[in-house]
């Protein structure tokens, strides 16, 4: 964060120093010229008098050379961005009056000095000048114009800098959002592992207690394989359906050991769907739910069918089990981690309702979870 700011301040000071140098040079030159012009009068040269020096003859408008930086300083000091803008405006109005008065007083001072009048005549001379020429509002108008001009420039600069900053922020936000999505996906994936791990480890424990060590070993080996593949694909949000099915086959191999002969898994996959891209591990939570809330709950239930079909631009994935119907309170839909995670992932990965998850009873028996996705492939 320090880099760009440091660069900006340096640029500002460079610009400031440049104008400051010009102003000081001009001021020194102006003073030198006036002093050079006044020298004969100061030395008592009879050929001149204060009346004929540039100090007296030059128009008072020269004072703007000194007033412009003061005006700029005041403008920067009296910012209108806070809630005191009304007071600031009033103050600028007062300063404009002061500036106009200053011109009148300075003009009168010159007259008093050039004509050897006592200083007490200053108000009288002011009256005299205003009576002859009328009250000169020009300095006040010039001050206000300058001030609002400076405000305009400052506003333009702030606006330009703000736009630049907003652009940078948008890019940073987009990057951050991407990171957050990835992090969320990673977190969701990480939630899958313990869920599955608990179930599998419980099964392995059961096998070991039943002295079925060979099956336990196979189950541990399968679990290791599943975890390895899961880790391999951890950074990829999408993968071909073929990989997902391969992963599921391995998963069911483990679950079939747990459920022994009772579990019958069917795959009904259209060949043209195997290359379709799907979110990684999108089916595994649904399969796990089917096992948990379907097959496990009804001893007569044993069928679990995975299907994939293409419907135009849509890919329809389904997980069916012939277990009991959905509970009336939709607890699974609202509180099941697997379903909620799947819904969340679909919302993050597909905007505008392009992807949906349906979970419903499938008469005469069983429950069908269905995911509808846009059909996409790696192929151009």
């Amino acid at each position, binding site marked *: 964060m320090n880099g760009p700011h440091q660069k900006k301040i340096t640029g500002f000071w460079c610009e400031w120093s440049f104008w400051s140098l010009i102003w000081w040079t001009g001021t020194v030159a102006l003073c030198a010229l006036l002093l050079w012009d006044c020298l004969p009068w100061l030395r008592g040269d*009879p050929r001149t008098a204060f009346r*004929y020096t540039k100090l007296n003859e030059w128009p008072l408008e020269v004072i703007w050379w000194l007033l412009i930086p003061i005006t700029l300083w005041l403008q920067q000091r009296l910012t209108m961005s806070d809630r005191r803008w009304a007071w600031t405006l009033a103050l600028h109005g007062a300063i404009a009056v002061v500036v106009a008065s200053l011109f009148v007083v300075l003009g009168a001072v010159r007259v008093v000095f*050039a*004509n050897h009048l006592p200083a007490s005549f200053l108000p*009288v001379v002011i009256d005299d000048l205003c009576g002859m020429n009328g009250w000169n509002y020009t300095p006040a108008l010039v001050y206000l114009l300058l001030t609002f001009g400076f405000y305009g420039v400052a506003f333009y600069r702030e606006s330009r800098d703000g736009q630049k900053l907003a652009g940078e922020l948008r890019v940073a936000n987009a990057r951050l959002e991407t990171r957050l999505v990835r992090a969320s996906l990673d977190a969701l994936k990480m939630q899958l592992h313990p869920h599955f791990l608990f179930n599998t480890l419980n099964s392995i424990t059961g096998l070991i207690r039943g002295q079925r060590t060979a099956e336990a070993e196979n189950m541990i080996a399968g679990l290791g394989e599943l975890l390895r593949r899961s880790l391999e694909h951890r950074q990829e949000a999408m993968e071909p359906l073929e990989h997902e099915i391969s992963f599921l086959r391995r998963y069911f191999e483990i679950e079939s050991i747990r459920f022994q002969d009772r579990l019958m898994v069917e795959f009904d996959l259209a060949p043209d769907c195997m290359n379709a891209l799907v979110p990684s591990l999108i089916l595994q939570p649904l399969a796990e739910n089917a096992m948990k809330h379907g097959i496990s709950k009804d001893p007569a239930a044993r069928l679990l069918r995975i299907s994939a079909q293409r419907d135009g631009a849509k890919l329809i994935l389904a997980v069916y089990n012939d277990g009991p119907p959905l509970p009336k309170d939709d607890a699974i839909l609202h509180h099941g981690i697997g379903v909620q995670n799947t819904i969340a992932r679909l919302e993050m990965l597909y905007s505008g309702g392009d992807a949906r998850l349906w979970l419903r009873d499938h008469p005469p028996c069983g429950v069908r979870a269905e995911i509808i996705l846009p059909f996409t492939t790696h192929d151009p």
Partner: protein
Amino acid sequence: MTSPCPNLGRTSLVVLLLAGLLALIFQGPRHGLPVVPRNSADQNILRVAWTQRTPPDPQMRGMTLAQHNLLILSLWEPLVECNPQTGEPEPAAALRWSWSEDRLILTIDLRRDARWSNGNPVTAADFARGWIRLLKGKKEGAEILAPLKNALAYQRGDLSDANSLGVQAVDAHTLRLTLEKPRSTFVMELADPLLSPVDVSSDAVLTNKSYLTIPASLVTNGPFRLVRASADGYTLARNEFYHGRTEVVLDGIQFVGATSLSVAQLMLAAGVVDLVTPTSWGKNRTSPTDRPFSIATEFQPTVHSVNFNVSRAPLADGRVRQALALALDRANPIKHYDAEDMRAAWSWVPEMPGRPGLTLLHEDAELGRRLLAEAGYPGGKGFPILRMAMPLERLPNPFIAVWTERWYQELGVRTYVAYEERKKRAERIKAGDYDILYNQLTATVPDAGDLLGIFSSHSNMNKTDWTDPVVENLLAEANSQTGQEHLALLEQVERRVMTELPSIPLMFDLRRTSLADEVHGWSPDPMMRQNLKRLHLVPGI
């Protein structure tokens, strides 16, 4: 209590302090201010406000004649001076003068006791030198010597021999002047400060301005001499070699620099000066101090007029000119805009010393409409738009705006007033490409013939193309006469001109002079040639 915005608080405080300070200045007292006491060394020194930047050169015409004349006539003395009451010439550096029978040669005897400020005698050659300097330098005002034989040819450069000029120093105290033709006012004209003598050293001193560092190097023959000069004014002391030194009461005069006439009046109120001429001080204005002063008002021989180009229709018709003159309203705009410095002109010549002004014109819009209808322009129908050439330096001129509007309201005559630069205007006048000219004419001698002379076909100031043999003859005859006969002939000229109206006189100038109550001896002089040697101060007032 702490301010959530310290910047705003501190800045507000500074602004309020500044505003308070300025308000104190603005609300300061304007009346009853103290008067600067006069220095003990200046008790008998007259201090005159000096708004000019002209050098003390007698052969240079100052823009504000009154001030310049006061300075020049304090330092120099011409041959004669005109009596402010009668206008008659009286001896000054000259002792006496006499005309030849044909009134073409004027012989002047100079005072034997006239001395320069360095003690040397003033001679006839010094006058001839001054006049030749005026002609040679092609200086403004040199036309005053036009009546002299060969003067214009010498000024133009057609003649290079000064001996052929009509000014000759016969001896140290005798000056002989030869004229081209008789001119009754010539002796009066010799009172002009332009015709002062110059010492043999003066031309170099004035050219190099060495008087600024060595004031005594400027040798003068007037009642005062220069003792200090700067861009801020001059200080004069009594000239102890002046022939009339015993009559000069003042020890000296200071011309104190002032940036404007308005400020000069404040200087008088403050006690910094004693005399301001002319003053712009309004009658109703209150003085900031209690210093007493008075304002003296006098006529100036200046006439403001509109001159018609009578070579163009419809202004060639006298009835049209009469109609335009009758439709005017002089009094009200003067009263409204400048009642203290202007007076309505009812004839061509203002009041002059020894000659009151005449009332030859009147205003009658109804009669004007009838005359215009008789001329073929009833209600102004078919009347062309008149183009009036105005000098740019007179912008804006409220009087002209009022009068041209009145021509439109009363007669239906429209006028286009064109303000132009001097050069462009001069070219336009030379080419005769105008209908009306705004003009301002000032007499240089206290004689009506000076102002009426512009209606002579010989005058280079005749911008109307109007000539009248009767007027020509009357003017020529008036030039050969003096006294009442001279005045009677000029009155005939004026009546004739005001009947034909090639020009309409509009206003005469007034001049006002502010005088501190200490100043005594001031008398009106329409020629603005008051001689300060006649003034004196009464201390303690």
